[in-house]
């Protein structure tokens, strides 16, 4: 079915999206492909009728128009049929696909032991990333804070990310996962994703955040579970003198420290 749709629409965008390496990205690609198909169909109908009418009913060929107000009962039925056709062929299909995907994947946050939890706090113009460390609690002395813009995740493992921002609104955009989530001041937002393949990828800020918005790039490394464990062990824990002073106040050459927040449990 996917192939048929792809052939029928001829890949209307003429380019390919970034490689999908995620568990659920195919769902987004599918709904996009169905929409490609259905809009090509309807646009085709519009264009074919336009061309036919231009050829058949131009004034030279068809000097006398037919007087037709289009207000009879038959016309009204036809109109209702048109509306219903569109409703069922477009709205109902796309909606059921999307709602199913949201329920089964995007809004169904994974739970359990193997989930990797990460807190991300973008700032103008860099990504601060925090892992909970050995005690599995954020905002403690053993938190792992890698250098800015460096994000490592294990493959085939659900990753839950919570986001807030240091300053203005940013958006955590993972092209290879077909996903993005805003980071807004004063609130914690959440998203989850899972990689199917290892490798090095990029992530970006998708929400205008100032003059160097275009440079706000991060480096994502997807690696095996073992490599990931080795990497995280090799990182220095964020050692601090006292536990009391957690908050946004401290900065070291523009890099905030001790910014972690208590993990928000989702229902």
């Amino acid at each position: 079915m996917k192939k048929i749709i792809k052939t029928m629409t001829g890949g209307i965008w003429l380019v390919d999206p970034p490689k999908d390496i995620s568990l659920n990205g195919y769902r987004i690609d599918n709904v996009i492909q169905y929409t490609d198909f259905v809009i090509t169909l309807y646009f085709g109908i519009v264009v074919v009728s336009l061309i036919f009418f231009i050829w058949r009913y131009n004034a030279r060929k068809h000097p006398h128009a037919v007087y037709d107000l289009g207000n009879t009962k038959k016309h009204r039925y036809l109109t209702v049929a048109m509306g219903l056709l569109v409703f069922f062929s477009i709205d109902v299909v796309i909606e059921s696909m999307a709602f199913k995907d949201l329920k089964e994947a995007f809004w169904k946050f994974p739970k359990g032991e193997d989930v990797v939890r990460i807190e991300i706090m973008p700032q103008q113009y860099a990504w601060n990333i925090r892992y909970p460390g050995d005690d599995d609690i954020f905002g403690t002395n053993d938190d792992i804070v890698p250098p800015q813009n460096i994000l490592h995740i294990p493959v085939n493992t659900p990753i839950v990310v919570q986001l807030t921002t240091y300053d203005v609104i940013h958006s955590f955009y993972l092209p290879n996962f077909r996903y993005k989530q805003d980071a807004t001041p004063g609130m914690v937002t959440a998203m989850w994703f899972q990689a199917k393949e290892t490798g090095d990828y990029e992530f970006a800020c998708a929400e205008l955040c100032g003059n160097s918005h275009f440079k706000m790039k991060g480096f994502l490394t997807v690696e095996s579970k073992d490599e990931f464990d080795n990497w995280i062990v090799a990182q220095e824990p964020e050692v601090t003198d006292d536990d009391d002073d957690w908050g946004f106040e401290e900065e070291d050459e523009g890099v905030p420290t001790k910014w972690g927040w208590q993990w928000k449990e989702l229902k």
Partner: protein
Amino acid sequence: MEGIKMSSSKSIMSTHIFSTDHKTIGKQFLFLGIFFLLFGGFQAMLIRWQLAYPEQPVPWWLFGSIVNGEAGMITPDVYNQLFTMHGTIMIFWAITPLLIGAFGNFVIPLQIGAKDMAFPTLNMLSFWTFFLSGVVLLVSYFLPLGVASGGWTSYPPLSLPAGGIPGLGQAFWTLSITLMGVATMMGAINYVITVIRLRAPGMTYFRMPLSVWGLWLASILNVIFVPVIAAGLIMLLTDQLLGTQFFLAGRLAAGGGGDPLLFQHVFWIFGHPEVYILILPVWGIVSELLSVFSRKPAFGAKITVICMSTIVVLSSVVWGHHMYTTGMSPLLGKTFMFLTLLISIPSSIFFFNWLATLWRGSLHFDPPMLHTMAVIWVFAIGGLTGLYNATVTADIYLHDTMFVVGHFHYTMAASVLFGGYAAIAYWYPRMFGRMLNPLLSKIHFWGTFISINLVFFNMMATGYAGQHRRLYNPGEFEFLKPLADINIFITISAFILGAFQILFLYNFIHSMVKGKVAENNPWKSNTLEWTMDYPIAHGNFSTAPQVVNGPHEYSNPNVKDADWVCQTVKIGNES
């Protein structure tokens, strides 16, 4: 009638500058709109230059040295200013005055058989407030730290001093749009009341031309939703200048602050109806002109009106689809998606009616008709691609990418541009007494039609390939490097598009002086604005017209020797 004539003294001040004649005010809006259209369009060319040839000096034919100082390069802060002002100017100072300002003013009273607007002085004030708002906006170009650069949506906290944009540019931006909103409200109230109160005898609602319907519905949305954004902008302004914290939160807010999301809600409660405010006049004009140039009644005109009215209602409850990635509640996301997709039903029905109007018609491909049919093409693409953005899951990927940019340029830029050109070509003889040069009009049309599709379709393609918006240099990202060629292609197409608009400008000005003198009813239309001699006197109609027909009695078999009949002429079997 007498009152209007006696009160108008003959000085140039009162006839051409502070005129209360709706026709003069309409022309003033038209000229100002075209000025801003060119200004905003020029900035688009600079944006495209930077996207195709990042950090290379702007060439002389884009006025590189004047705009960018000595180095001749666009810097990141200038780039952000360019796209901010391009969007702001095009939406608020080009499209709004071109369609609602110019044609709302010029066409509504003439087509409904009124002597003038309900409140002529308010109408004049509306234009001059609008003019003032434009001046405030342009003055901000001379501020030491430049104009606003927070995007046309101006989301806080970025648009607040704490967000890091220096200077007063953002505050001038907020102030000028608030003023623009005041001007729009004055105009909109005028249009709404004029249509309700001043229709000529016999001009029932369903005998109004569909162009009036479109403009009227747009004005109703304006009356309801412009106050919302005005309130939001005043709050934003006090945040910017007085240190209130309506839209500030997190670390930057000293005393707890407010909520940045609140601004997004307020902005889009207005912002989504706004796109319908911009497009409704086009729908009306298209519905009307298709009938005129097919010499056939508008198919199912009543249903078209009902559909447009349904969309007016729906447009006010779908703003959340701009905010799917903000982390809104799943229930809200689904609701907004459902409501948004519902718009496809009335839209498809009036599309069907448009095509059915052409069916068995007798099509005359004069320049207004060419532009009208182009609207069908571009709005079909624009409307259908809206489906991706309405879908929560697809939008998670496509939100804030060039796909969205391409989509809304199809709906707002391309559709409104062609609708505006159709309206200008159609009513030009009534406004200036002469015809546009048809050959130049046709060259301009084809050049615009081809290049505009190359630009906006490929924008969507780059977005589908992942390119996010508002990037100074897409080459910063490895995954966007393969798109360099397509970006160059878009830019060259955009330059061609821009060049063809200069041809239009030449035609527009030249024909005013040298164009063929127009007859009173060159398109053989039924509607009332073609019944009087040019120049149309202040007061329009010497006696109030008595309307007996609907506007679309083309090719009526009961009319002898003509395929049209004026709305005031009885169609009878008596002869």
